[in-house]
């Protein structure tokens, strides 16, 4: 009567197998290329060796640049993130809720848009800010965005939102009584922060740091737009240059990418050491109502910090792009005849862009919808099922996080170009690519949602005799719905803004928007590119608003 092999197990391992194929199949090709020392034109390789890795030693500057920029950007992102998280979750600053929502906007605006805007603002000669500086009698330039710190600044602003999200969640999940206990004993507020709060949040912040650092290592758009003018290369832009030429240095590029695995693993190891040695179990998934600090008049100072952040990360970039897009040649003090609507006219007429935009929206919809199912099942499998081997699956699923998407795209390209079903150069390939590279993001997000829900709620349905499918439909999914909707939107946005993987995998019939904007930046004027970026932002914003409204309505209907 009983079954050792339940349908649940079969489904679980089926999904795990799909994830393993998605990740490991391209990784195999990537590693194959990294160790290929034969004729690069012939695949499979004719000879293997370590030459590609030893030739990396020729590029100490690039490695150094990468670490430097990533580190600087991570530190800045953590500083902004912690400060904003503290202000918005722990103090009584006015408009906290609104600001918390708005903190996601820079992430949605994309690093590419940020880099384009800040390039217009901060170039030493033509930058608007420097133009104004000189107009007021300044000498030379006030800021130079084409420096490592400039690059890190833009990366921190536009890729660093994840730091805020993670740290804010951390601060919310900390039991305030832990701090209260310290204060009751008589410790000062500063002492409490130093000896209780900081040690408690340290592992969480370290975790966020590693996640953000990985993002920064793989960041491509910002270094591309802001680094190239001063020949400041990081690994991703160097790889991009290496594969742009003929004959391409694919093997070295693959080795460069593969060497990042080592960096990420070392960091993960260090992280686990910290977390295990500390064994901080006090921070649970449970949400407490955080005790808000009454900061008195200081709240207006904090409010202006929030406003300043939104100004440099949202209003200023968008305003700049809008201003530039209305000009023939973007300058800070344009004459009347320099204004034109031609850029928008041209942008709207560009067939490639039109199809790219609709392709992107279609893909994002598909990625988010399929992704929710796939990643939801995986998250459930890893964190709830207790099936043997789920730990290994977690490692496999998290693997793409350790590799820049540009590098991962190589593996994907070779893997699927030889695949017997002709999906190469189609939207299907991009869909597979997105589902693969967003596995860590999706699984992590959904796992966060799942872990917040008491396990006994599901078990109880099981004890009432409900089958797996029935309880998923009646208990698990309704409880997860708000979290799943948020995860769906996150995947949607992540897909629309994807650049690293798409730029290699686009085909003539499968163009998507972000790489098209990069190509436009390469090959048309910055004014037209600004117009394109604005159109993309507007269309995606509209799509998201529509989707949110629809999901709200559907959600409301099904609850009543």
């Amino acid at each position, binding site marked *: 009567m*009983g079954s*050792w092999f339940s349908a649940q197990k079969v489904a679980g391992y089926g999904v795990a197998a799909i994830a393993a194929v998605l990740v490991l199949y391209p990784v195999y090709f990537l590693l194959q290329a990294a160790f290929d020392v034969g004729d690069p034109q012939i695949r499979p390789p004719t000879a293997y060796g370590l030459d590609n890795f030893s030739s990396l030693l020729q590029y100490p500057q690039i490695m150094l640049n990468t670490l430097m920029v990533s580190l600087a950007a991570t530190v800045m992102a953590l500083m902004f993130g912690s400060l904003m998280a503290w202000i918005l979750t722990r103090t009584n600053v006015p408009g906290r809720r609104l600001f918390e929502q708005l903190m996601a906007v820079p992430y949605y605006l994309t690093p590419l848009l940020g880099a384009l805007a800040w390039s217009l603002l901060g170039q030493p000669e033509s930058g608007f800010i420097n133009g104004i500086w000189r107009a007021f009698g300044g000498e030379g330039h006030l800021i130079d965005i084409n420096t490592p710190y400039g690059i890190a600044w833009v990366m921190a602003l536009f890729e660093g939102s994840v730091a805020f999200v993670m740290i804010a969640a951390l601060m919310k999940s900390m039991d305030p009584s832990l701090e209260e206990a310290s204060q009751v004993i008589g410790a000062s507020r500063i002492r409490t922060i130093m000896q209780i709060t900081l040690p408690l949040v340290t592992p969480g912040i370290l975790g966020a740091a590693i996640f953000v650092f990985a993002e920064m290592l793989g960041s491509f758009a910002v270094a591309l737009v802001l680094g190239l003018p001063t020949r400041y290369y990081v690994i991703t832009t160097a790889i991009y240059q290496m594969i742009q030429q003929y004959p391409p240095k694919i093997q070295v590029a693959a080795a460069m990418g593969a060497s990042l695995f080592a960096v990420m693993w070392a960091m993960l190891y260090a992280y686990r050491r910290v977390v295990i040695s500390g064994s901080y179990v006090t921070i649970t998934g449970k949400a407490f109502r955080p005790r808000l600090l009454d900061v008195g008049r200081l709240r207006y100072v904090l409010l202006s910090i929030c406003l300043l952040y939104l100004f440099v990360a949202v209003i200023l970039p968008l305003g700049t792009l809008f201003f530039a897009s209305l000009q023939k040649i973007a300058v800070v003090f344009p004459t009347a005849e320099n204004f034109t609507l031609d850029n928008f006219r041209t942008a709207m007429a560009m067939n490639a862009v039109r199809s790219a935009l609709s392709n992107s929206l279609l893909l994002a919809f598909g990625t988010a919808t399929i992704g929710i199912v796939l990643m939801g099942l995986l998250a459930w499998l890893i964190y709830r099922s207790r099936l043997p081997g789920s730990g290994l699956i977690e490692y496999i699923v998290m693997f793409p996080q350790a590799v820049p998407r540009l590098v991962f795209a190589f593996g994907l390209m070779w893997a699927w170009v030889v695949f017997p079903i002709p999906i190469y150069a189609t939207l299907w390939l991009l869909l597979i690519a997105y589902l693969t590279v967003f596995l860590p993001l999706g699984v992590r997000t959904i796992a966060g949602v799942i872990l917040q829900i008491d396990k*006994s709620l599901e*078990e109880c349905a099981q*004890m009432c*005799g*409900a*089958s797996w499918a*029935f309880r998923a439909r009646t208990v698990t999914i309704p409880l997860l719905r708000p979290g799943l909707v948020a995860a769906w939107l996150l995947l949607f946005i992540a897909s629309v803004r994807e650049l690293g993987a798409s730029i290699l995998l686009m085909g003539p019939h499968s163009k998507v928007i972000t790489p098209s904007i990069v190509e436009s930046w390469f090959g048309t004027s910055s004014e037209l590119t600004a117009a394109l970026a604005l159109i993309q932002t507007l269309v995606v914003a509209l799509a998201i608003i529509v989707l949110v409204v629809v999901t709200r309505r559907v959600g409301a209907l099904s609850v009543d």
Partner: protein
Amino acid sequence: MPASPQGSPPSLSTPRPHIEVEGLELYYGSVPAVRGVNFNVMPGEQLTLLGPSGCGKTTTLRAVAGLEQPTAGEIRIDGLPVFSSARKINVRAEKRGLSMVFQSYAIWPHMTVFDNVAYGLQVRKVGGPEIKDKVDRALEMVQMREFGGRRASQLSGGQQQRVALARAFVFQPSVLLFDEPLSNLDAKLRADMRIELRDLQHRLGITSLYVTHDLEEALAMSDRIVVMRDGLVEQTGTPDEIYSLPHSEFVADFIGSANLIRGHHRPDLDCDGLTALETATGQLIYGMAYGRKAGPEMTVSVRTVHLRISQERPAGERNVWPVKIEKTVFQGDFSQIHLYWGDQRLVARCAAMEPIAAGRDVYMAVEPRRVVLLSPGNR
């Protein structure tokens, strides 16, 4: 409510156990949680798994429920194996026909009270009017009828507990499992619910398996108790047996306060069926073996309530000693007296009386039948 629950056929001869657990082992990786547990639950019986946290009681319960997969052993319900490592049987939880009340209540926050309770009936595809009828009756039994339309988030802890209970029995399961259902309630409510639960269990006649770490709860509610420790069964028996005749120091100590006295056997002084024990300081105490074998080194257990304190020397020869009062702690219904017996410190509980000044010399006596010999080797 039906007198005989589904699935347990009425039988006049010695009934077959409703639940049988045999050689149950459960490892998390290499960490043992349950290391070989055996017990039976008879039809209509309430059996309690009692023990400190980490003793494996909840894991055992969850294994019976089907929420954990044991490493080895066999579990039978109505004689049919629902889990057997030897025969590779593992019936899924939802197919075992059991029901369970969770420690956290697990009231679904997205449903009303009515929907929560109706869930098990909907799963069983019961028709609408019948569902309404049954849910109403179940809510009636737990005095929650007027709350049917509320959402779970609008209920207090005690109300959630009642809903969880109604939800668990509404579809007439053959067995009810309770995982520390009262541990999240305050003391007064807990005491009330204890009686209500026991009452309900009797009325429904459902076989129940109950897990708790609370001694009073176990004694008050159980037909039989299984005391567990470190993944093993320490002792099985009725509440009275467990309380009066603990097997081991662990049970004696865990089940209410007991004085443990160690010494060596003086077989030469045994008489009248009593066993004589001499402590290291030469004090002699007579106790009863209750069929247990006395070794050369022994431990006896004496409940604090069975030590009698008096100003004058009581009549009788055996088990009467002069002792010195260390201190008396007033505890309301009784006083706890700490005293020196030779150089050993003992505790006695007496019904409230005039406090005796510290340092006074008094007499202590105990009936030999209250001095219980513990099984050797069971520490």
